[in-house]
């Protein structure tokens, strides 16, 4: 075993038992999965992406590239979770990934022998295949992809749905402090003392120290910055628990709008790249410190390899815990006196001017080789020497965690002494401050002072008092790094990995550069470096050094890539959050429950649920709608039209306003009358149609199609706010105020006569397009005589809360006439027979002429769309225009069919137009359709074919006038 647990007593931590790869493992409460596994002797925790190489723990927290596991909750699998971020609990089940049959013995690791095959761009170059032939390009790739995906890749997702729930919460504050280290805590306390509303978010479990006046969010990782200082974070609410309380989310999506933010996000240690650097046991020195803080220390011989002084303190600390530090290998020829002293404390041999050049050990490190190194020439010299070593701690210097600052800022600033990028200034419209090691201010005391200093500035800016511009503390030279990021040469047979997670080597980066992918953004995409879940935390700086080195440029000249959200992976459930099921709300009419109880098949029309048919046992959809439509023509039917858009239009200028937005005149409409209206867009195409009722001198009720209700309302809002603010008109959506039931059929009036009180409904009292007010079942109703079906028909409107009662009364009154409820299919059938248009024809491409509605274009007044509607392209006689289509063969016509002249299915066919709606017509006793056809009028009386190549339908049809049934409209005027 390379690690041991120093003490289990401490705070009297509770033992915890969990399962890893099917075996029970013991740990202690507060352990991460990674720490518990390491303490139990698991050195290999993952297999690499391409080469299936055994990999061990490498970095602390969210920088860990190797130890990815799948967590299993019942049938649900959550892959690619970093073992360093999993808190263990009783009953946790985790599984290693990307290995077969086991972590220690993996068949695909043979890929490593064929390493050349898998170099950068390999997939694309090799598997795009020949440019011609049956396996050309993408087809060949698709074939190979399946095989490759099995071999390469990370964890496997399951098919079971996620049993957990997620939540979103919206938060607001003056100051959001990110990171509860020394700097962050001090900044939060300072801002809270100044009386500001402060949220402190930290990725770690809660500490015992709470700060007065600060809302602290623990286990909360901030991963995104959006415009206007909006921050996105994930709180792991229950990930560390073995059970959930009712309604408890697993994770919570915090959306925090802050007036300003203080990033105290810390810094991460960087590796130095060298041959054989991925042997399990090679790890960042900071991981050793992190483990030591969790009472887990190395038990085998330890070496450290560094380009800076910070690793010396780690060596001394580990020695203090009883670890055996064999050697400290430093690339620098000279090191500081304090470093030398620390090496002595650690009892380590100090080897300066040297670098590690190779490793031994497959599943665990056994020894390392090092050689003299010339830091100025960046080259190995002399002969290698080998020493026994179980753990190699490496430190290539420290990089401030600038992910969030980069998302919300400009270009990061290169620091030569730190060999790292410092956070950029905020982009316009953003406001944040960075403090502590995230700003290059290391060391506890310095960071704390910096937190207070930056908070003072933030407070002064928010409160509007003069800002004291104290200078930031200088970076402690302990963290200055020699500009050495990669050791070249050395063990020729060993790969030097830059991105462990995607198996990108130093050679891959050089290859990318040779092949022309020399810009960092291009190299990144070609090699996939930095695109895995640790987002380049380990690889970015070494990769830029290597790329720049090839081009003779410094890192400052090469520049870095821009960070984008999320800074760490986010579960999809977190993003869906409080939206569950089908993620959309639904809208129900007042009669919804009745429809379902009466056998309706619901149909989603936008967010609305509407009855499609009221099927009887054994009926097909067609049989049901044909029965319903026939009942309307022969007797009387009733349909729920509550979904129609309804807009209350009030004001002294309401009539004038309608004259401008409708093509026809409304100012002269009498009170108590309705009129069919047509609306054009500014460009002259049809926008919507509907009837508008005049309820008073200054009040109209406009109806719109169900689908366009929102759009029309917005258009009218626009007209009043932006075009004619001087008009005195108010608009209010009253769609939901009214329940609507349309009664149609020869007996419709008889039904009303039976149940309506307080008004007559005969032709004198209620002529076509007339409106009356009365009561049904004692409830107030408004009845308008208008017809979409072409039959004698009425729309009965009542308050939505009375809708069901009025509907019941109508059904009762209709019983002697065998009243039949009908759904959308029958509604569609009736209107197709009549040639009435809907959204299928008003498709944003048709004009009033195309739909034969030119009679509605007033010449007496100007209206929107008038000036553009007569442009040559919109009046061309060869435009598609509305016709009726009759099937000549008795075969059905599919909606969406193309109209063609060819009598056989040919490819390509020359389309004359398309079918917009089709049905079986009980009135005409054949399959019919509406279609938009080139120069439609001139084709009336000719034949063609309705073709649907996808379904193989090719139906001979006759083109007729769109008003296929009762063209004179006698039936509705009775």
């Amino acid at each position, binding site marked *: 075993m390379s690690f041991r647990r120093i003490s289990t007593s401490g705070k009297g931590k509770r033992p915890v038992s969990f399962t890893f790869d099917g075996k029970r493992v013991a740990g202690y409460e507060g352990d991460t999965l990674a720490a518990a596994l390491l303490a139990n002797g698991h050195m290999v925790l993952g297999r690499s992406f391409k080469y299936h190489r055994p990999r061990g723990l490498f970095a602390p927290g969210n920088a860990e590239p190797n130890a990815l596991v799948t967590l299993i909750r019942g049938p649900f699998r959550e892959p690619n979770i970093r073992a360093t971020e999993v808190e263990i609990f009783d009953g946790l089940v985790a599984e290693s990934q990307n290995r077969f049959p086991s972590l220690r013995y993996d068949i695909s690791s043979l890929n490593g022998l064929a390493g050349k095959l898998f170099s950068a761009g390999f997939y694309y170059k090799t598997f795009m295949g020949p440019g011609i032939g049956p396996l050309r390009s993408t087809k060949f790739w698709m074939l190979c992809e399946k095989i490759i995906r099995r071999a390469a890749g990370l964890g496997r997702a399951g098919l079971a749905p996620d049993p957990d729930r997620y939540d979103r919460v919206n938060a607001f504050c003056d100051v959001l402090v990110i990171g509860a280290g020394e700097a962050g805590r001090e900044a939060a306390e300072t801002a809270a003392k100044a009386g500001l509303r402060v949220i402190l978010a930290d990725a770690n479990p809660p500490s015992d120290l709470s700060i007065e006046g600060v809302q602290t969010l623990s286990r909360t990782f901030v991963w995104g910055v*959006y*415009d*206007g200082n909006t921050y996105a974070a994930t709180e792991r609410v229950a990930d560390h628990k073995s059970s959930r309380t009712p309604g408890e989310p697993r994770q919570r999506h915090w959306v925090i709008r802050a007036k300003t933010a203080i990033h105290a996000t810390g810094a991460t240690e960087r590796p130095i790249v060298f041959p054989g650097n991925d042997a399990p046991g090679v790890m960042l020195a900071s991981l050793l410190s992190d483990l030591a803080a969790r009472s887990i220390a190395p038990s085998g011989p330890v070496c450290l390899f560094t380009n800076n002084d910070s690793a010396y303190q780690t060596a001394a600390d580990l020695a203090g815990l009883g670890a055996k530090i064999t050697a400290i290998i430093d690339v620098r020829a000279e090191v500081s006196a304090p470093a030398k002293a620390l090496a002595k404390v650690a009892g380590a041999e100090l080897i300066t001017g040297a670098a590690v050049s190779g490793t031994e050990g497959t599943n665990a490190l056994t020894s390392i080789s090092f050689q003299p190194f010339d830091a100025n020439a960046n080259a190995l010299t002399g002969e290698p020497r080998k020493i026994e070593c179980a753990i190699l701690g490496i430190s290539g210097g420290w990089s401030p965690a600038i992910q969030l600052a980069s998302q919300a800022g400009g270009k990061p600033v290169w620091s030569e002494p730190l060999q790292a990028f410092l956070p950029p200034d905020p982009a316009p419209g953003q406001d944040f401050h960075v403090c502590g090691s995230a700003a290059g201010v290391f060391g506890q005391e310095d960071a704390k002072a910096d937190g207070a200093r930056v908070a003072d500035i933030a407070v002064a800016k928010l409160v509007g008092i003069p800002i004291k511009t104290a200078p930031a503390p200088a970076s402690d030279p302990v963290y200055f790094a020699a500009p050495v990021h990669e050791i070249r040469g050395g063990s020729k047979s060993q790969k030097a990995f830059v991105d462990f997670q995607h198996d990108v080597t130093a050679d891959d980066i050089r290859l990318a550069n040779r092949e022309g992918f020399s810009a960092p953004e291009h190299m990144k995409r070609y090699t996939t470096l930095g695109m895995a879940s640790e987002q380049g935390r380990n690889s970015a700086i070494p990769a830029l050094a290597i790329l720049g080195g090839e081009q003779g440029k410094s890192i400052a000249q090469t520049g870095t890539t821009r960070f984008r959200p999320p800074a760490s992976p986010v579960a999809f459930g977190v993003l869906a959050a409080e939206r569950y099921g089908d993620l959309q709300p639904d809208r129900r009419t007042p009669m919804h429950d009745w429809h379902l109880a009466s056998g309706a098949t619901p149909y989603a029309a936008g967010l609305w649920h509407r009855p499609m048919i009221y099927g009887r046992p054994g009926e097909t959809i067609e049989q049901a709608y044909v029965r319903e439509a026939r009942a309307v023509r022969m007797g009387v039917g009733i349909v729920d039209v509550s979904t129609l858009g309804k807009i209350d239009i009030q004001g002294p200028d309401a009539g004038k306003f309608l004259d401008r937005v409708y093509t026809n005149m409304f100012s002269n409409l009498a009170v108590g009358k309705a009129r069919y209206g047509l609306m054009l867009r500014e460009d002259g195409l049809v926008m919507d149609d509907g009837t508008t009722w005049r309820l008073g001198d200054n009040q109209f009720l406009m109806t719109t199609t169900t689908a366009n209700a929102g759009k029309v309302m917005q258009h009218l809002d*626009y007209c009043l*706010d932006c*075009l004619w603010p001087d008009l005195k008109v108010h608009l209010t959506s009253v769609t939901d105020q009214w329940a609507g039931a349309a009664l149609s059929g020869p007996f419709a009036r008889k039904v009303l006569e039976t149940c309506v009180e307080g008004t007559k409904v005969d032709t004198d009292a209620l002529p076509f397009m007339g409106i009356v007010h009365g009561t049904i079942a004692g409830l107030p109703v408004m009845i308008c005589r208008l017809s979409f079906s072409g039959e004698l028909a009425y729309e009965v409107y009542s308050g939505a809360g009375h809708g069901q009662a009025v509907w019941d009364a109508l059904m009762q009154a209709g019983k002697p006439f065998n009243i039949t409820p009908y759904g959308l299919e029958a509604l569609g059938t009736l209107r197709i027979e009549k040639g009435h248009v809907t959204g299928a024809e008003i498709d944003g491409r048709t004009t009033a002429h195309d739909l034969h509605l030119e009679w509605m274009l007033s010449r007496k007044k100007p*209206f929107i769309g008038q000036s*553009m509607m007569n442009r040559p392209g919109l009046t061309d006689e060869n435009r598609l225009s509305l016709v009726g289509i009759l099937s000549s063969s008795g075969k059905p016509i599919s909606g969406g069919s193309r109209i063609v002249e060819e009598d056989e299915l040919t490819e390509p066919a020359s389309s004359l137009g398309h079918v917009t709606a089709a049905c079986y017509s009980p009135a005409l006793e054949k399959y019919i359709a509406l279609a938009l056809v080139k120069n439609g009028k001139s084709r009336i009386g000719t034949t063609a074919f309705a073709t649907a190549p996808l379904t193989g339908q090719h139906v001979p049809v006759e083109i007729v006038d769109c008003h296929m049934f009762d063209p004179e409209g006698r039936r509705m005027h009775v």
Partner: protein
Amino acid sequence: MRISCPHCGTRDLAEFYYWGDATRTMPELGSTDEAAWLSHVYDRPNPRGRHKEHWQHLGGCRAFLVVERDTATHEIFSVIFARHAKTEASK
């Protein structure tokens, strides 16, 4: 993006509906100036940088707003009610 509605205060982008360029003026209804209409309907400046746009506060007071912002950085310079835009402009 967060937009400060003159009535409702600062709200999330999700409450607002983008309506487009606010620098055009519609010709008088009934105008037969074809060029003016074509320009009004089809010519949309799409600058990188400062621009005035119509946004409707659909999830709030429903008012149309004129938002002056930088299309590249999303920095917002001013927000006024569209119905006041003409009077504001003539000030």
